[in-house]
C-alpha cells in the first residue's frame, strides 16, 4: 500500500536493531488516517526542526479537570486528521498488573475512538492513549468508566500514584506498596480529578530502599519501605556464601558507611551506622534480611527539570508505620498540601517552594520535628541562623 506522506527522515529511524516507533505508527496508518497524518506532521517537524503541536486549552470531560491533555495541530489544513490529537490518561492499576483481556479491551476501545496508538506506560504511570478528537472524549469516557476504568491525573492536581510490585512478587518489600497506592488513589479522588494545587503532585511507593520505581527522583512524595532494628543475620548461610564468593571484597568493602566486618567466621554489622543501602541484603539474599519492624521513610520534593532544575527528594519523616487506614500519613499529607496551597506560586512544585522558603520554615509550619536523617547534604551550608525564639531559650 502506498504511503499517504513521504517520510525520508522518519524512515531513518526504522533502521537498526531496536523496535521503532515509526514502524509501529506505519502499521497503525494502514487502517487509521490519523496515524497516517501523524507521520506526515512529524516528518515536517523533523525537516523544519520545529514542533507543530499546540498544547492545552479547554478539552476534558464534564466534572473532571484532569485526564485529558489537549493537543492540536497548528497546520490542520495540511494534516486534517490530526487537527485534534488529544491524549487521554487512564489510571493504571497498582503494580501495573493486567489481565490479557483487559489490555485487549482497552486497545479495542482505542481503535474505535482514537488513533489506535498507545504509550504504556507514561512516565507518571498512566496508560496513555495517544490521539483523539474532542467529540469522542465524552463517549470514550462513558465507555471506559462503565467497564471499571477511570481517567488518571493531569494538570495542577494529584497525579496517578504508582508503585513497584511490592509484596506481590518481591521478598524485600517492607510495605504493601500496591495497597498503599490503591488507598491513596481512592482517598484522594477529588484531588486527582479536580485540579486545585499550585502545580502537579506525584506519589510513588517503593517497597525497599533499592527503589526500583525511582521514587526518590520522580515523585514529589516518595514512600520508601524500610525497617527499624538490626538486620537479621543467618551466620550459617553467610558461611555458605563465603564458599562461593569473596565476602570481604564484594560486600564488606562495598558498604558505603563501612559498618560491616567479616573475620572469615562471623559477619558483624554496626546497625546504628547502616544507611539502608540494601547492597549487603541484595548480595547475601539467603543470609541477610531486613529488621523485623517494618514501615516507611517519607521523602519530599523531587521533580524533573520542567520550569526550574531537577530535584531529588529528601527525608521528611525517617520512619512511619504504613498500615491501613494510614491516618497519620493522610494527616501529614493534608498539612503539607495546606502549606503548599497557602504559600506556593502558580506552577511551583512543593520541592521548589521548600527551596525558596527554607526547610526549617517548612518543618516548623507543617509540625515536623527536625532530625539528623533530614540532612540532605552535610556541611553544605556553613551558616546557621538562630531564630529569636532559639536565642530566648
Amino acid at each position, binding site marked *: 500500500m502506498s504511503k499517504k506522506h513521504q517520510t525520508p527522515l522518519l524512515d531513518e529511524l526504522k533502521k537498526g536493531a531496536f523496535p521503532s516507533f515509526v514502524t509501529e505508527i506505519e502499521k497503525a496508518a494502514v487502517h487509521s488516517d490519523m496515524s497516517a497524518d501523524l507521520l506526515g506532521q512529524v516528518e515536517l517537524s523533523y525537516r523544519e526542526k520545529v514542533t507543530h503541536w499546540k498544547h*492545552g*486549552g*479547554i478539552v*476534558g470531560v*464534564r*466534572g473532571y479537570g484532569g485526564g485529558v491533555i489537549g493537543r492540536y495541530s497548528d497546520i490542520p489544513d495540511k494534516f486534517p486528521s490530526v487537527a485534534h490529537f488529544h491524549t487521554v490518561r487512564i489510571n493504571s492499576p497498582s503494580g501495573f498488573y493486567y489481565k490479557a483481556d483487559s489490555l485487549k479491551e482497552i486497545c479495542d476501545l482505542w481503535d474505535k475512538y482514537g488513533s489506535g496508538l498507545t504509550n504504556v506506560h507514561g512516565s507518571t504511570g498512566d496508560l496513555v492513549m495517544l490521539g483523539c478528537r474532542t467529540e469522542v472524549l465524552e463517549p470514550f469516557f462513558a465507555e471506559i468508566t462503565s467497564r471499571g476504568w477511570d481517567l488518571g491525573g493531569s494538570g495542577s492536581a494529584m497525579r496517578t500514584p504508582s508503585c513497584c510490585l511490592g509484596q506481590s512478587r518481591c521478598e524485600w518489600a517492607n510495605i504493601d506498596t500496591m495497597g498503599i497506592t490503591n488507598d491513596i488513589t481512592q482517598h484522594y479522588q477529588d484531588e486527582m480529578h479536580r485540579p486545585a*494545587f499550585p*502545580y502537579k503532585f506525584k506519589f510513588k511507593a517503593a517497597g525497599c530502599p533499592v527503589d526500583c520505581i525511582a521514587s526518590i527522583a520522580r515523585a514529589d512524595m516518595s514512600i520508601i519501605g524500610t525497617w527499624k532494628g538490626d538486620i537479621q543475620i543467618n551466620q550459617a548461610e553467610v558461611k555458605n556464601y563465603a564458599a562461593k564468593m569473596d565476602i570481604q571484597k564484594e560486600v564488606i568493602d562495598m558498604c558505603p558507611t563501612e559498618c560491616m566486618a567479616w573475620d572469615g567466621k562471623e559477619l558483624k554489622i554496626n546497625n546504628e551506622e547502616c544507611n539502608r543501602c540494601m547492597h549487603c541484603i541484595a548480595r547475601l539474599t539467603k543470609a541477610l534480611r531486613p529488621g523485623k519492624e517494618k514501615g516507611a521513610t517519607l521523602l519530599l520534593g523531587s521533580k524533573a527539570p520542567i520550569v526550574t532544575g531537577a530535584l531529588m527528594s529528601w527525608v521528611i519523616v525517617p520512619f512511619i508505620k504504613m498500615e491501613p487506614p494510614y491516618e497519620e500519613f493522610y494527616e501529614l499529607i493534608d498539612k503539607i498540601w495546606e502549606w503548599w*496551597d497557602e504559600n506556593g506560586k502558580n506552577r511551583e512544585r512543593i520541592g521548589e517552594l521548600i527551596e525558596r522558603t527554607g526547610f526549617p520554615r517548612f518543618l516548623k509550619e507543617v509540625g515536623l520535628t527536625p532530625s539528623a536523617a533530614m540532612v540532605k547534604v552535610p556541611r553544605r551550608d556553613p551558616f546557621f541562623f538562630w531564630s529569636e525564639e532559639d536565642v530566648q531559650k
Partner: protein
Amino acid sequence: MDKEEVKKLVYALVEQSTGKKKLKSSDIVKKIAADHDGVEKDDVKAALRDLVDAGTLIYTYFGGSFIEIPPKE
C-alpha cells in the same frame, strides 16, 4: 450562607475575572472565604464542585489548571 448563594458568589467572581486574570481553584476558594464571614473554604469547594459538575464552569489548562466559564457554542 446556603450553598446556592455561595455558588452565585463563585460564578460572579469567575465572570468578573474573565479576560483579565485566569483564576485557579485555590484562588477562588481563598478569596471567597476571606471576603465573606461564615463561608468556610470547604463550602466554597463544594459550591465549585457543583458548578463544574453542572458544566456551568469548566477546568482549562494553560500551563496550569484554571476555572473558567465555558465558551459560548
